[in-house]
């Protein structure tokens, strides 16, 4: 046989191989289509019903291990519209207290995109316990309907709403882009719930159930071999002191403003209060949720707005502390430096204005909060001889200020924080024209006015820096994630500010102590505690001045720093200082010895009662 003829024989092998494979496939098809019943059974059940087992969100504890948030089970009524033939519509409407038109409307919505008549969609959210019980009894009559278990947040004490944030339904866009979420799922919308969503949400479980033609679940697919368990979210250990937070919220009631307390040695947020607040239990879900949200949203006092990290206020006189530090560091003033004050800043014809007081040195200027003094100080810093161009001096001041936090995002673990504002050279060039402004044009920056804006968290951070004499830790509200209490390393990094000068800090702190001992906060002294503070009265375009007060205590080894701002409440010493004083006393000594002051602060309603606000002076 020739080679080519020999090779030609291979056609039989190739053809035979092709036929053999085809034959095997036909046999296999015969097996799965005709002989084996397993797959037919599966298909009769319209494949499977996938029941999502929703995981419990992680619990959140305060710094002393007290519970801030836990979960409560709730039940959603789901529907597969295609399977509702033969459903006892009338009694379902009766149980749900809806009419037929509403029933049809919801069914139609469940059929339209993105829902589908063959897929499950929400019919009624978060049934009440009574409805659920009634429904369960008659479930066999409601073809195409079933109940899905979910969990909603529950708050043992109605506190820290802004800090904890709330959970809401995931947005359509997010559900489409993030494979974890399906429409109707819950997601952290604000606060800790948002920033720690991935830790808190846990892992969904899937149960594959087999149903019969009557929509009854007759068992688990493959004995539950492919089911997965839901895994609860990780617990979070929060830095908040629940009791102090609650006490602070009671002190701040009837006022608009914010109060932030930090532990300077760690940067931990002890309290974060935004007033007016709201009960977080209002926004956990159910039918009331939407109504409550609308009401809170429409409230002219914006209770949903987290003033502590989002409201940008002029810091007022409290800002003088930073000026004092920079000036000493640059060597333009000493402890003994005295500047004239004639009920105002003399070179500018008495503006900014000041209140009557004896001539003061550095210590006195802090204690008495002299506006004239800090107008001089600001111009001394900016107009230093070593900066030939004035804008270089200004940039030196601005850059140093920004190392304290103002004008930057601090990098806290709360979402949506605002950076505040320290105006730039470009900004002033735009407003006044290039070379159209000098240090006297912007002198009110030196006393914390003009375009200078800080959020209360930044104010607290400035005090923490002073208490630490030159550094801060990024303020944060979670100290541990999961049972192992995993810590975030970035919150253990010391941030050194632009003033590293022990003596400068000591002088400023002396002034702040004097502020309590014989200065603007004299009437808010804390019994038995050496506290250091600074008042501020922030002029603003929205009405009366904001009352600002910031303090830390005790002077040696500070345990707590507090910044408090009350909107349109006039002078800082009247309303803000006493509240801070009470908070310090409560935190450090554990009890409050001034019940009448406490009562006066809690009962006053500054939002409604405007004539209680003190007359203004600086």
């Amino acid at each position, binding site marked *: 046989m020739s080679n080519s003829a020999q090779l030609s024989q291979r056609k039989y092998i190739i*053809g035979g191989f*092709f036929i053999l*494979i085809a034959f095997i*496939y036909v046999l296999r098809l015969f097996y*799965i289509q005709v002989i084996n019943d397993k797959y037919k059974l599966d298909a009769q059940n*319209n494949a499977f019903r996938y029941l999502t087992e929703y995981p419990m969100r992680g619990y959140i504890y305060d710094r002393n291990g007290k519970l801030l948030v836990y979960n409560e089970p709730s039940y959603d009524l789901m529907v597969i519209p295609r399977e509702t033939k033969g459903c006892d519509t009338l009694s379902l409407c009766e149980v749900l207290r809806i009419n037929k038109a509403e029933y049809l409307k919801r069914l139609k919505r469940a059929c339209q995109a993105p829902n589908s008549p063959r*897929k499950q969609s929400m019919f009624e959210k978060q049934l009440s316990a009574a409805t659920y019980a009634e429904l369960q009894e008659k479930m066999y009559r409601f073809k195409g309907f079933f109940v899905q278990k979910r969990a909603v947040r529950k708050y043992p004490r109605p506190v820290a709403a802004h800090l904890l944030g709330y959970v809401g339904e995931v947005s359509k866009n997010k559900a489409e882009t993030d494979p974890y979420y399906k429409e109707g799922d819950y997601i952290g919308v604000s606060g800790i719930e948002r920033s720690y969503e991935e830790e808190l949400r846990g892992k969904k479980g899937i149960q594959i159930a087999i149903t019969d033609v009557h929509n009854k679940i007759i068992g688990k697919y493959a004995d539950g071999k492919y089911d997965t368990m839901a895994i609860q979210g990780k617990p979070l250990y929060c830095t908040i002191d629940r009791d102090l937070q609650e006490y602070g919220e009671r002190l701040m009631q009837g006022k608009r403003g914010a109060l932030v307390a930090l532990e300077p040695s760690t940067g931990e947020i002890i309290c974060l209060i935004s007033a007016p607040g709201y009960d977080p239990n209002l926004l956990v879900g159910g039918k009331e949720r939407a109504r409550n949200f609308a009401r809170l949203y429409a409230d002219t006092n914006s209770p949903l707005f987290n003033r502590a990290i989002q409201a940008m206020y002029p810091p007022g006189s409290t800002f003088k502390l930073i000026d004092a530090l920079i000036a000493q560091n640059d060597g333009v003033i000493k402890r003994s430096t005295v500047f004239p004050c004639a009920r105002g800043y003399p070179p500018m014809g008495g503006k900014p204005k000041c209140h009557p007081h004896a001539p003061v040195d550095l210590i006195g200027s802090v204690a008495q909060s002299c506006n004239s003094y800090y107008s001089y100080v600001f111009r001394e810093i900016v107009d230093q001889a070593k900066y030939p161009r004035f804008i270089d001096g200004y940039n030196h001041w601005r850059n140093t200020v920004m190392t304290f936090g103002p004008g930057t995002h601090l990098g806290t673990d709360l979402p949506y924080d605002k950076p505040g504002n320290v105006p730039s050279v470009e900004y002033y060039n735009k407003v006044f024209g290039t070379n159209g402004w000098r240090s006297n044009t912007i002198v009110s920056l030196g006393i914390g006015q003009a375009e200078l804006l800080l959020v209360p968290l930044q104010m607290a951070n400035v005090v923490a820096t002073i208490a630490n004499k030159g550094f801060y830790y990024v303020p944060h509200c979670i100290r541990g994630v999961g049972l192992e209490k995993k810590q975030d390393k970035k919150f253990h990094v010391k941030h050194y500010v632009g003033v590293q000068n022990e003596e400068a800090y000591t002088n400023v702190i002396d002034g702040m102590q004097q502020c309590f001992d014989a200065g603007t906060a004299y009437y808010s002294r804390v019994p038995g505690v050496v506290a250091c503070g600074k008042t501020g009265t922030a002029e603003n375009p929205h009405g009366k001045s904001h009352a600002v007060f910031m303090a830390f205590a005790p002077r040696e080894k500070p345990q707590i720093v507090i910044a408090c701002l009350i909107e349109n409440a006039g002078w800082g010493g009247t309303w803000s200082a006493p509240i801070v004083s009470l908070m310090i006393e409560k935190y450090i000594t554990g009890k409050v010895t001034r019940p009448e002051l406490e009562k006066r602060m809690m009962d006053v309603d500054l939002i409604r009662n405007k004539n209680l606000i003190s007359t203004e002076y600086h």
Partner: protein
Amino acid sequence: MVQRRNQNSLFYGVDRLSVILYILLVFMGWLNIYAAVYNEDHQSIFDTTQKYGKQVIWILSAAVIAFCILLIDANFYTAFAYGFYAFLILANILVIYIGREIKGSRSWYGFGGFGIQPAEFMKFATNLALAKFLSNQNIMVIQRTGLKLRQIIKHYRNTILALAIIIAPLFIIKFLQDETGLALVFIAFIIVMYREGLNVGFIIFGILTAILFVVSLAVSQIYGLLAVLAAVASSSLLFMKRNRGNIIAVSLVYLAATFVVMGTNYAYNHLEPHQKVRIDVLLGRGEVNMKKEGYNVNQAKIAIGSGGFLGKGYLQGTQTKYDFVPEQDTDFIFCTVGEEWGFAGSTIVIFLELFLILRLIVLAERQRSDFSRIYGYGVSAVLFFHVAVNIGMTIGLMPVIGIPLPFFSYGGSSLWSFTILLFIFIKLDANRLLILR
């Protein structure tokens, strides 16, 4: 002299049976795409926002392409065989730079709403180049003269070059474009090389390697080794004389087999995760989550299995609609056949495809020119590979590899590619009596 008068006709000598089978398969494919995509909102068959509407456009344009191929002189394909090959190799490399990104890989050229996948067209170009090469060179090794490396290379020079023609596009498509399914198709050309004289040893070696791989993964490495030992020992005792050369040869085979078995886990561990899972699903290894990894195959089997003997009827399928089965209009189109047309319909589809594949072998064998014969075998082999892998994966006999069912699956590139592949051969066959190449 009726024939002579018709010699100028476009359809002179065209094999009617192949064309009829082609039309039948394309039409059935379209019916099934319509069934797979069908929903109550879009019922017009020419709705070009829907895939069955687009497929109508693809089918019509494929018909135009088929006509054009029949118009062009058959010598064109032989003359430009290497030209096509070089051009498409270039196009397949360029696509990763200027192509459109779809699902993370760049293997498509975009033209407005339509896309063209150059890898699909690599098949006919490779087939042309291989036919041209093998028609000029002989890969049959008649007699070995020695065992020295230089001699071996000399004997197998042509085999190695032919393999290079196949492997170059395979590598480009697998490693540059990351289209595993399209790349593996080129393995089919081994069948062509076998027909043209490839040493059987290569085939046996390949098959043994595959079997060992499966055995070691599915059962265990130890059993794999024992099986090899038993096979080699028994065969050598039965069939071989005990001389030094054979003892060395047997030892070498055993060593190579050991290497394959031990290397199995290494190779498996270096697969992409999704490929690992596909192998696990096929072999039933370890924990496979039916909701996730095993989902496709399981749903496909449910859909086909639920069809029963006669199927649920056209457009009556429930499993192949509403996304129970993924990719139900492209790679998993066979599920729709299985569910709606049952065992009877599935068998008919398999037989139609097999009929066409065997018909092509018959046509190939009647060619006078080597080029035409080799090209014909190439078409047959590529179609066979697609059918075997595509249907095999839907019924759980093959791992999930994303390649289309010829003429059935939705998609312009694949339909055009198969049409070009087939009709070039039909043209070559039509001219078989006129020209001796």
